[in-house]
């Protein structure tokens, strides 16, 4: 007599169970990897979505203010008028060219090369003479506020006019020391702007 059908069915069941279990495990391996990726993606996407909200507000606000004329984007002509801005700042602090206390040179463009890239470097120098520490501090602060969006301070030279030892004067808490301050700004632009 042949083997009973039940025994065959048992063997088939065992093999089928193991085969299905193996398939399920392989499926689990892949889906679990996918799940891990998706879990990370989900958290990252939620964080990105929150960022997108903020970016959208910021950018929208910026363009809104631009459209309303509340702010103006620096453009090349504005950059080219940097020396006028500096003169204006100096005048604001009563540092006048007419008193020979202020001198500024318009921006000069010099061709430069970094790697394969060619570009123009613009330099603008302002000299403040016979100014107090209070005056040059205020001038520098305003200059940075006005030009900081596009220019970098290349050099600053703070030179005390009186090079003698005058401890008494300083200790009095007054600010009569005179300085000569030279500040040089630099910014860049593409070669095509020449």
């Amino acid at each position, binding site marked *: 007599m042949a083997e009973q059908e039940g025994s065959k069915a048992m063997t088939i069941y065992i093999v089928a169970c193991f085969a299905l279990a193996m398939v*399920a495990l392989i499926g689990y391996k892949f889906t679990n990897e996918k799940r891990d990726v998706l879990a990370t993606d989900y958290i990252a996407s939620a964080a990105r979505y929150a960022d997108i909200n903020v970016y959208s507000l910021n950018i929208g606000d910026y363009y809104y203010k631009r*459209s309303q004329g509340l702010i103006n984007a620096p453009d090349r002509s504005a950059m080219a008028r940097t020396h006028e801005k500096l003169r204006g700042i100096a005048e604001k602090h009563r540092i006048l060219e007419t008193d020979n206390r202020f001198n500024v040179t318009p921006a000069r463009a010099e061709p430069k090369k970094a790697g394969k890239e060619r570009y123009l470097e613009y330099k603008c120098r302002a000299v403040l003479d016979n100014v107090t520490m209070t005056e040059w501090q205020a001038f520098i602060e305003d200059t940075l506020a006005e030009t900081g969006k596009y220019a970098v301070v290349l*050099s*600053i*030279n*703070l030179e*005390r006019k009186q*090079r003698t030892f005058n401890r008494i004067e300083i200790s009095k808490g007054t600010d009569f020391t005179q300085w000569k301050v030279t500040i040089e700004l630099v910014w*860049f632009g593409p070669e095509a702007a020449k």
Partner: protein
Amino acid sequence: MAIAVYIEYPRISAIEVSGSARKPRVKRVWVGTLAEARNEDGTPVADRQGHLNAQVAAFLKDNKIPHQKLFLLVGPEGMRYRDIHLAFADKRQIERVLPFQVEGLIPNMPIEDLTLGYNILREEPDGAHLLVHAAEKDYVRSRIAALEEAGWGVEGSDSHLSGTLNLGMLHTEFSAEKSPALWLDFAGTIATVGEVHKGKLFAARVFLSPYLAGASGGTAGAEAAKEAARQAQADAEARAREFQGSTESVKLPSSESVNIGEQEVADRIRHMSRDELLKFLSRVAIEARRTILMSNPEEEPQRLIVSGLGGAGEQIATLLGNELGISECKSIDLMQTVNAGKDGKPEVDLPDAGEMSYLAGVAIKGLGRDYTHINFRYGDLAPGTLFDYAKTPLAFTATLALLFSGILFLMSWTHARQYERGISELRDRDQGPEFLFKKAFAHTAKLKAEDKMSAEDFAKLPKYTVIEEDPTQEIINTHKALQNHQKFLMGETSDNYLRPLPADQIMVEVFKALGAAGPSYDFALIQLNVQPTSVTIDFVSSLTETQKERDKMVRDKLLAPELKDVAEYDRILASLRALTLTQTKWFDGEPRPDTPGRPVEGPEGRQVRPAKITLLLKKPQPKPATTPTPGGAK
């Protein structure tokens, strides 16, 4: 070599045969006692299987039975036979329908409790006649378990009728060239009648040998034997009635067996009265005639062959021949086939036990001689391979593995789907990335229309791209575009222009360092020159600073307590050194002090020394080239 074992109260017997399938030889015989499953006080043993295991193990080990092909003989007490006719002779079909056929023929026994075998008696145009051998599973299982528990593997299991046929058909009296014969075999209390023609068995029946069944043992007296035989006859007839008139089967009560041998049978026949002998002959003749009638042979049997009656064989054969009308009668000894010595005497002395012919017939299956090809070890009685034994735990493990892995898969799949949906919902919500992106650039069209934004700049504004099948990437792209645009608006550059170090920030850090050094009352900064490559600090430091002044500065928190004993110049130098070490992105190495100048005297007798310290700056490095962002440098 092969061994057959028969286990039935009150004996366990085994026989070993050697030789070939054509010429088998009995090699050894072992007979042991099988104690009744009762305790010392006569109560039945609770663990009957354990009792049987112990008895069988003791028999096998005490007799040092070799580990060879071992077959279990199923005696008449565990067998039922049915003669059935089927409309086909294909073995696969027969095996398919046999359980259902037998189920109706043995109504008092669930088919699940039987293990079946069959041999085809006659193949006819309209089907086949089968002799079904049905063994009780419990009988077979308990004995196999006992043998296997003792450490002996069981190759197969077969019925006593198979053993008789296997052995008998080897005898020369049943060779193919002989004329048709009616064969009557007596093995103890069991008789078999068969019709043999051309070396094949055409019909067979097993029945209880009337008037022979009774008390076993050669010492039983004639009167006791008669009484016991009468009782056995009554029992056998009552059992036959159980089958509702079906006398095709015989099943002995377990107390009766084939344990009486030829000598005992002959002794009983000798002590029969004339009346008993006539009844005996009449009953046997009836069974023989029924067999002939059922088989309906083309040729009537011309010979009568009687076996298993020992010395009384010739006499009974003659008497039965007269009864059946057959003139050629002969008595044979089946065991001569496998135990014939050179001088006609048995080669091995055999005990006077009726099961010897059965055992020898079953044992020679192990040599390749198998007339019926029956083996009850199949299905749940099949010899267990390692895999068979492991099936149940394997099935359990497989189910668990499937459940476990299935649950894992479903969980991770469900989670993955949830995350996918979550990301899609993020992308597809009303105020999603697309809405926010468009909102960010809502005023740019107006700027362009009012010429506040050039067409070139407008064209360079990022565009929203929908990626329907990948919401994650769509969010990433949106985020990146807005982030980059915000950076661009905040002045971040992506060009490769060589920007200098920020002189204003360096100046502030130098002032902080000078302040941290705690300048004295005499300190004065003469010059601070921040150039692209270096910072030069000219100053005068006090030489007349007193400890009292420093202590006051410490109290006023203008000087760190640990610097209260340090001269001003050293404090400034240390503070600048700390600056160069912390701001390594700007400063290149430690401060480089010049030789201090000559002391200068001021008011109130105070003295200072002019000093100059240079800080070297790192050379700006160009950034790696990147893709230019819209608008260029600002």
